[in-house]
């Protein structure tokens, strides 16, 4: 048992940390956020050149063949920089999904292009409540809601209820007839889109249902999301500690006050428990035993989600009025942590799923 990262892993993390510190400053990010697309294809190409788009793709397809641990390191490093580009969906979830759901030909055609950054592939899974996407005569109809980075996609992978009763996975080209994307910013400065499909042409990728493959890919994404959250929380706790040491009131640094010290200790407890669960999530997210995998990932998302809320809220509270300003990166960390808690199933969803499993186990025993 050891919790150390090896030399290659540390080098990878250093590369990304250096990129964020030098080339993805808060000012740079603000300019990208305020640009029309709200993200940067140029940055995407830089990431491709650094090799980080290739880490989740097998060597056979031009990738580096790394796994969830390396992904976690990269996501953690991106976390503090609040990357606006579609790394999680395009470089983590998409390759995992293509690998699991699509034919060898499809993999051979698309995975190398994902690795080089040429093509951005985005999964659109969650249906709009009132118009779930269905297959009708080989084409798709219905809507997907708040598709993360849907507007960046060169190729969409869309889940749909098929005539055969299964959940199918379809390749859809943005810009094709019957495909409408409404792209917009989200609370955390990232982008999302609503996808409307009106008898849209689509190519079915799976043979015999894709639900398991989609869930497995999303679980790999969830572990990566947990690592991102820990990266942001590390930065948030460090910045708040520093603020408490410098901000003077009543003639002394406010960090001398026990009420605030204990709040910081509580934040650290949340952070370390979240870090532990993000490690466990990385270990278990590619487990083929879906029940065991879900148990770990739900536990991880509960721990991380609760930490996100607690740390984000208290970091703003302890910064006082300054924590409320758009000027400070802290408020942007706050918003991203808020969004993370609500993504990939929120704390309540995962707590309920874990609890329901307890009831089932009890009945089985």
């Amino acid at each position: 048992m050891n919790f150390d990262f090896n030399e290659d892993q540390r080098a990878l993390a250093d590369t990304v940390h250096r990129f964020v510190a030098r080339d993805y400053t808060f000012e740079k990010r603000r300019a990208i956020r305020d640009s029309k697309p709200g993200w940067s294809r140029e940055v995407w190409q830089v990431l491709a050149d650094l090799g980080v788009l290739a880490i989740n793709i097998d060597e056979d397809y031009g990738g580096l063949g790394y796994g969830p641990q390396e992904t976690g390191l990269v996501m953690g490093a991106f976390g503090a920089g609040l990357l606006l580009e579609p790394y999680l969906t395009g470089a983590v979830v998409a390759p995992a999904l293509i690998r699991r759901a699509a034919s060898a030909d499809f993999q051979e055609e698309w995975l190398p292009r994902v690795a080089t950054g040429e093509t951005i592939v985005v999964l659109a899974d969650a249906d709009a409540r009132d118009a779930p996407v269905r297959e009708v005569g080989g084409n798709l109809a219905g809507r997907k809601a708040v598709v993360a980075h849907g507007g960046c996609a060169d190729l969409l992978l869309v889940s749909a209820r098929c005539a055969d009763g299964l959940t199918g996975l379809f390749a859809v080209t943005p810009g094709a007839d019957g495909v409408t994307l409404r792209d917009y910013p989200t609370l955390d400065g990232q982008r999302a889109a609503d996808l409307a499909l009106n008898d849209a042409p689509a190519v079915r990728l799976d043979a015999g249902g894709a639900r398991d493959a989609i869930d497995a890919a999303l679980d790999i994404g969830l572990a990566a999301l947990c690592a991102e959250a820990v990266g942001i929380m590390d930065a948030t706790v460090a910045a708040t500690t520093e603020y408490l040491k410098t901000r003077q009131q009543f003639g002394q640094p406010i960090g001398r006050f026990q009420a605030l010290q204990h709040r910081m200790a509580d934040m650290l407890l949340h952070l370390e428990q979240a870090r532990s669960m993000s490690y466990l999530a990385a270990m278990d997210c590619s487990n083929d035993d879906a029940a065991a995998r879900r148990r770990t990932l739900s536990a991880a998302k509960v721990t991380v989600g609760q930490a996100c809320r607690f740390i984000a809220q208290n970091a703003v509270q302890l910064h006082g009025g300054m924590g409320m300003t758009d000027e400070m990166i802290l408020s942007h960390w706050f918003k991203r942590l808020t969004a993370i808690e609500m993504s990939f199933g929120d704390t309540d969803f995962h707590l309920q799923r874990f609890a329901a499993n307890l009831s089932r186990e009890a009945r089985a025993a």
Partner: protein
Amino acid sequence: MDLSFSPEENTFREEVRRFVAEKLPDAIRHKVMNGVHLSREEHVQWQRALHGRGWGGVGWPREFGGPGWTPTEQYIFEEECAAAGAPRLISFGLKMIAPVLMAFGSPAQQQRFLPKIMSAEEWWCQGYSEPGAGSDLASVKTRAIREGDHYVVNGQKTWTTLGQYADWIFCLVRTDPEAKKQSGISFLLIDMKSPGVTVRPIITLDGAHEVNEVWLEDVRVPLENRVGEENKGWTYAKFLLGHERTNIAGIGIAKRELARLKRIAAAEGRLDQPLFAAKVAQVEIDLMALEITNLRVLSAEREHKAPGPEASILKIKGTEIQQTISELMMQAVGACALPFKQAGVGPDYAANLGTGYCNLRKLSIFGGSNEIQKNIISQMIMGL
């Protein structure tokens, strides 16, 4: 990063499991599994069984007769013992005074005391807290005045856990009342049979006799029973407080009690109630996270990278988890937790859930209250 135990560690786990299965008497196991207090004899019986296997000095290096385990092996040992319902180790001798004697005691003290701790021939208790010195331990007032080759000790110690069983007590006493409070303290080993030592029970809210007051009136203590130098006792005291780390989170015990909670909750149909099931789920998740956090601390400890303050994280979360489990067990049986010390009322498993809940409120108070632990975290780790 690799979160699995090594093949050697797994073999060791099997060995411990087999040993406990063979040697742990059913009567003791049944009591532990149901949260019943053990007698002195039962504790001693188990310690002797461990000693017979060469495992009497848990946490001790080989040179003092211990098994020389790594922190991870010790963790595995305690986890397996807890899971199987073995008594918790009586820590006052094994894990508190023994490491102090190994580090600071004279060879004569080491030879005199250590073997009898391992063999459970002598029971130790802790003379730290006083009525006026709890969290502010350095303000101890018990006075020791040198008279020839003896100290004469006067004062009162309190919260002395299982002092009623003890043969010896290690005490913080004030030898220099003029010095700044941390610098006038010495560390004495006192024979409980000495004239002038009186033990008075303190009955706690659960009706149990677990802690005591120890009164010291003109107790004569030979100079050779002082550990280390005069007025350096605070150094040894802090060493002792910081030493017991590997099992501070109580992961093994918490896992065993969680399993008991689930059995009781299932029997009561409470896991079909979403609100209750969510509370059980929450504590199980917290425990999963703490287990990994604990392994991280152990792993760092093995490589001598992180010294102490991280243990405060383990103490806070570990005690909160154990308290929550005891609270949920009580909740699970509803009114059946209320009859006080009544056998045969309600289901058997409900008999001591109310008192168990009351008893475990101590966890966040002793060993440095959880508020003191938060001071340590914010000041020592975060630098505030």
